[in-house]
């Protein structure tokens, strides 16, 4: 796991391709990268995404109910995109090092 960056840095990095991503797909990728395979790890990463959205760095562009249980059955899944503020924070906080 050497060379990994803080979780929120990596999340911003993943969103900085300026494409829309479903939260469950990002969570799955992060779980693999950081070896956080437990339910606690999954919820912890998702909560970091929620915090980034709450802080105005990501914006939810689409939502759907998780009918198939790909993340948590019955819960809402969100498709996020990075905001201008998120790009600014990403560039002045971390991505300039990438």
């Amino acid at each position, binding site marked *: *796991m050497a060379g*990994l*960056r*803080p*979780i*929120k*840095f990596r999340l*911003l990095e993943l969103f900085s391709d300026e494409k829309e991503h479903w939260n469950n797909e990002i969570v799955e990728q992060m779980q693999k990268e950081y070896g956080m395979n437990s339910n*606690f790890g999954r919820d912890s990463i998702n909560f*970091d995404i*929620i*915090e*980034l*959205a*709450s*802080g*105005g*760095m990501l*914006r*939810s562009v689409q*939502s*759907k*109910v998780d009918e198939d249980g790909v993340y948590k059955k019955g819960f*809402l899944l969100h498709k996020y995109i990075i*905001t*201008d*503020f998120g790009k600014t*924070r990403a560039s*002045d*906080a*971390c991505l300039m*090092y990438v």
Partner: protein
Amino acid sequence: MDIRELKKLENKRKMNKGYMWALFCALLWGIWYIPGTIIWAVPPFDAMWVDIDATHGGSMATIVVALLISAFNALTVIVALLIWNGYLGKFGEMKRTLKEFHPCSKWFFLASIFGGPIAILGSFIAIGFIGAGFAAVAALLYPVIGSILARQWYGEQISKRAWMGILVIIVGGLTIFVGGAIAEISAGNLSYLGYIGGLMAALGWGIEGAIAGKGLDIAEPDVGITIRFLGENLLYWVILIPIAAIAGYPILEYALQAFTPLALLVLGFAGITFGFCYVCWYKSFPLIGVGRGQGIGNLYGLCAVIFMYLFMAQVPAWTVLVGGALCVLGSFVMISEDTGDMESLRGE
């Protein structure tokens, strides 16, 4: 229920979670004033005060004892936080965040300057000179500073209702400070250093919240708060305590004598309550914003006055009670807005 309704419900749940963290913060913060008061009468801190009073006077004795108590408070808080992070399995994330000094952890170290030797030391100075009830209520002004700075620095939204709450809190704060000072001036014994301590607490915590909010954008709250207390410990134990020792105060001798079961028990109680109050405080910021997090966290003033009355039989002056009630009312005004449609705390 359609998607829009579900989304609204999810936002509301998220905000409620933030409010819950802030409320836990208020409860634990209020309880913290009990060990924060008792510790002054526990050996060796009581003897230390008498010792320094004999050579440098009572005011200096109170400030130096407050410094040592603040340093031990920071030490027990970091122990509690390290255990908490160990339990959550976040040491790896802590290491990763610490490494990112320039973009991230510097904010927490900066927050530790305002939160530690300014706010917490100021609070202990206010406890030492005037009393825990005053210290608790005086710091109630801090959300005003935090909200205004959070708006100026990173555009956090403040609604009209929040501004109204801020105004009520300011009036409450003025009642506490000016009312208390006038009563003391007319009695001929103004503890001005205690008032400065109260002001340090309000300014320090307000600025700390706004700075920490910047770091919390890109860090996990549990990790951020631990780095912030790491910074505070370094400030006390590497800079301020050695300076006090070099200046001729017997601070190191008494620091070594503090490792007694009773002192450690009281300090441990302070560390657990304060450590977890901070965890709750920092966890609330990303969910409801610095302004609201500090606003609801402000209920600690009410909790502190109640706990100090129940456990220490301390009844604060009427100006403190009236001012405190206004601050609590202002906090309620700040947080009573409808948040169902609010997805982001920032203005985008």
